[in-house]
């Protein structure tokens, strides 16, 4: 085969590799989903974050509006301080919104769902307005089962002689 043809086929081969890498980066790992959009930063404190992980999504009405960027222990209150980056295009989160940790499906990942409130003061990431006050911790299955068993045990007691 002539050298030129070989060079062109090798070029196509390398191009296929680059396209496959782009496919893996964009479609499989969703690299473009964050970072490109400008965000502002909010905080929320939780008693228990369960299995919430950094990079977990933040949704409102089921639509992704941001990502969790850090989870730390607040040394003063001994609660979890979750840092949330919200896209700048979403600026309608009032200061009485509720941010709860939810689970997608039975074995799915945990994410933060924000339910908007009725207040006229919007959170914009400035020092005064950057804290979602009302939060709801993750449901921990073991706690639920424990509570259920405890209730059952106390309910059964009067029946015993």
């Amino acid at each position, binding site marked *: 085969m002539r*050298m030129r043809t*070989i*060079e062109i*086929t*090798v070029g*196509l*081969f*390398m191009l*296929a*590799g680059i*396209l*496959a*890498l782009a*496919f*893996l*980066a964009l*479609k*499989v*790992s*969703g*690299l473009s*989903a964050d970072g490109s959009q400008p965000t502002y930063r909010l905080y929320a404190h939780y008693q228990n974050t369960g299995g919430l992980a950094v*990079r*977990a*999504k933040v949704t409102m009405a089921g639509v992704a509006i941001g990502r969790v960027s850090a989870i730390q222990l607040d040394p003063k209150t001994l609660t979890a301080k979750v840092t949330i980056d919200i896209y700048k295009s979403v600026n309608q989160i009032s200061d009485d919104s509720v941010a709860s940790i939810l689970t997608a*499906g*039975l*074995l*799915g*990942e945990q994410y933060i769902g924000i339910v908007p409130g009725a207040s006229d003061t919007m959170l914009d990431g400035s020092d005064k307005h950057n804290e979602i006050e009302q939060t709801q911790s993750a449901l921990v299955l073991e706690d639920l089962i424990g509570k259920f068993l405890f209730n059952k045990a106390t309910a059964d007691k009067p029946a015993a002689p």
Partner: protein
Amino acid sequence: MAAVEQVRRLGEGTIEALRSLGAAGVILWQAIVMVPRPRTAVPLLVRQLYSVGVLSLVIIAVSGLFIGLVLGLQGYNILKDYGSESALGTFVAKTLVRELGPVVTALLFAGRAGSALTAEIGLMKATEQLASMEMIGVDPLRRIVAPRFWAGVIAMPVLAVIFSAIGVFGGKLIGVDWLGLYSGSYWGNMQSSMVFDKDILNGIIKSVVFGVAVTWIAVFQGYDCEPTSEGISRATTRTVVYSSLAVLGLDFILTAVMFGGF
């Protein structure tokens, strides 16, 4: 008398093993260090990329597709028992990108391209082409070995990435188009659990390491083989056996370092 003979054989075998290890090291060193003049080297490299990479593309693509299809079917049936078919995308992508992509590509690469490299270089040696090259002042390591080595190292990650991409697509064919999974949950769960620098980059690092190992073994076995037809056939067999073992062993070590958590 027999005991002395045994000891002599043991010593001979050890010295021979040490010698070939040293020779392999010298070849690797010379293939890497000798920076060739770009005017002559680039066409040589392109030609080798063609025979090592482009010609392996079909078998890689077809195997990637079938492995993706099988992963889709098996994963769906297993995950269905736990009511979490929606995790199929994560399952397929993690398996392919982290493990099966680099490893299966390297094994196929050893069989398809590594054996060809060994046989080619071995035959050159048997027909004294290498010796005549030296005679006219052309260094066979620079002219023959180095471009083949680098072509293997470059082609391997490209092939592995193509394998993984086609496999993920095959899993989607089964899960979404055939078994009726919602396509949003296939891609969405995949995207939320795959991390570019952790999963995909580590997969690429793995395939580069495998590329070095497989081509190094193939090139060395060809260069070091006994210059007879029997010697070439033995060297070709050794290439496939050694590189498969090296790939699987290295894969364990790399996985332990990357994902083992220490």
